[in-house]
């Protein structure tokens, strides 16, 4: 097996034996987010060429605002996936959070009470997911799929299948108002993002979650309180799904029974995965998820603005998803090019 007989050229080798770390530039360049941002820029250039409206402030805001839902939901989902779990029920929890909050709102409960109450209901659902997985030993997907079905039924029963509205203006301002020109829903997303970034990157909890997802047996053996971590993860995933539902209700001014469901779960999971979180656990970042969520709503938006017939939407979306990740791999391989 003669691989090559070319003499070694040392200049492009920064490394000593077993030592060497990558430069900061390399570190930034090899991140998946960087690729996704490049893909976003490419889409943006294309969309701008087809419609001047794309770069208008109101359009960019609208992209951001529609990504808020995916992102908030994806934050909790990402944390759970990094911790080695999976929550299929998120789409139904989204609806449950929205509906239970809106039910209270139309009954006259002021929103500062109704929102926490709605979230609390969903946290309880998260705890049930945890209990079913942990104590009844049901694999996470089946457990949360079961919860998904049950909640879908409950969501419908509770509302009798009808959307819940009208919602008080005060509540709608939670998403529709703005502070210093930035709309509230975007602010909420930023706050959630910062919180999750902090949790994941700067706390013991974050490290423990990565350890749990990276090697559950090692986490157990090294004395992590894995049940507590699991509980926290399922509850957090449910809470962000519910919060996304609440924000969505405030955005559209109604508690929609038909919002959420499989497609919402799918979108959040897509944002998580495209953002570089590994289903194998342990790996991923909030920045990646943020870029993934914005990319998804950017694609949706650009498809409308560029006037591509909607029949072609799904082809374009599929192609972009796959090529974004594929390009990412090729870029990295180039950076670490084999001699």
């Amino acid at each position, binding site marked *: 097996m003669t691989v090559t007989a070319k003499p070694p050229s040392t200049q492009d080798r920064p490394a000593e034996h077993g030592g060497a770390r990558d430069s900061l530039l390399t570190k930034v360049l090899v991140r998946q987010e960087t690729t996704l941002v490049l893909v976003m820029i490419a889409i943006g250039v294309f969309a701008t060429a*087809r*419609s*001047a*409206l794309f770069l*208008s402030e*109101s*359009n960019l*805001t*609208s992209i951001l*605002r*529609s990504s808020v839902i995916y992102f908030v939901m994806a934050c909790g989902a990402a944390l759970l996936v990094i911790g080695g779990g999976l929550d299929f029920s998120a789409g139904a929890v989204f609806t449950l959070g929205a509906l239970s909050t809106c039910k209270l709102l139309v009954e006259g409960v002021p929103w500062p009470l109704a929102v926490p109450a709605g979230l609390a209901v969903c946290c309880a659902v998260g705890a049930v997911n945890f209990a079913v997985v942990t104590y009844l030993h049901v694999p996470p997907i089946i457990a949360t799929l079961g919860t998904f079905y049950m909640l879908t039924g409950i969501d*419908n029963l509770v*509302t009798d*299948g*009808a*959307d819940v*509205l*009208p*919602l008080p203006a005060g509540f*709608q301002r939670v998403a*529709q108002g703005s502070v210093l020109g930035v709309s509230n829903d975007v602010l909420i997303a930023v706050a959630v993002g910062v919180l999750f970034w902090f949790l994941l990157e700067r706390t013991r909890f974050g490290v423990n979650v990565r350890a749990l997802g990276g090697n559950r047996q090692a986490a157990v053996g090294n004395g992590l309180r894995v049940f507590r971590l699991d509980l926290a993860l399922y509850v957090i995933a449910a809470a962000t799904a519910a919060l996304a539902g609440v924000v*969505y209700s405030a*955005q*559209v*001014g*109604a*508690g*929609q*029974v*038909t*919002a*959420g469901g499989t*497609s*919402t779960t799918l979108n959040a999971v897509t944002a998580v995965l495209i953002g570089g979180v590994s289903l194998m656990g342990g790996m991923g970042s909030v920045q990646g998820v943020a870029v993934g969520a914005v990319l998804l*709503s950017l694609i*949706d*938006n650009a*498809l*409308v*603005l*560029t*006037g*591509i*017939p*909607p*029949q072609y*939407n*799904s082809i374009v*979306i599929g192609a972009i998803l796959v090529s974004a990740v594929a390009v990412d791999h090729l870029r990295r391989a180039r950076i670490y090019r084999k001699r």
Partner: protein
Amino acid sequence: ADRAGGGSSAGGQGAMTIQFVNPLPSYPTWRQIGECMADEAKQRGADLAQSGPTGQALDATAMIQQVRQATANKKDAIITFPAGEGFAEVLKQAKAAGVVTGTIYGPGGEGSGSDYNIGPDWASIGETLVGAVAAQPGKHVLGLVAAADTGLGKSWLDGVKGAVAKTDNVTIAGEVYTGDDAAKALPQVNALLTAHPDVTTIVTHMGTTTPGAVSAIKSRGLLGRTFLLAGGHDNGGSEAMEEGTANLMLMQDVCTLGKQLVDGVVDVHQGKKPAEAPVRIQVVGKDQVQGLLDKGWV
């Protein structure tokens, strides 16, 4: 009016911009509505862009996002099918931003957020369906096939149930849901017919049920005893009428509906009062189908 955008290449400066948020852009009936709208918009000097959710199923969330995007992009008018009560609020948000709103098959009226609605509401669709069955001689037992007890499915179920209550020769034996999953039509209709062998007519709001229902009726040997009320000529509705598994078909003049909707929205934009449009939906027997098809009904 604002500068043209959103995929308009033809529309010049000052042309009215209309966004049609199509619920099912790949579905033939809805695609036809979109095409007719685009023709009419061109006639009226407006610029109509079409968008819609990805995938097969009706996705109210994605539609609402697109209504909001069109509002943010300051379209002159937004047209959509309000697949649920929740559309009222986003349409109101659009109106508040100065956008003219038009709906098809919506509830219409003050609270709907719609400046101009066309097409019957679900109560009158239900009456049309049930009325046609009741007009046939004898007693009729309905088996209902709906997507779900929410959104569109629920509106339809409520309409049908309300209409049945007003007749004396039609009853409902049972209902099943398919979750808008075509692959569930056959087993669900099979189970429905097993549980309620007395069912004489299968009624559904989904064209996607047709092949499954037809197959179930035939395989159970109920040809001539149980009939499907076909939800349009697509999906094998015409063939079912031909072979006798279906005895009635719901038909609509969707193209005219679409054109009138565009006219109405343009009129509102120009400050005119739009014309009231007649209801163009009918349930017909085998002999009338071809005539209506020739007139552009589906």
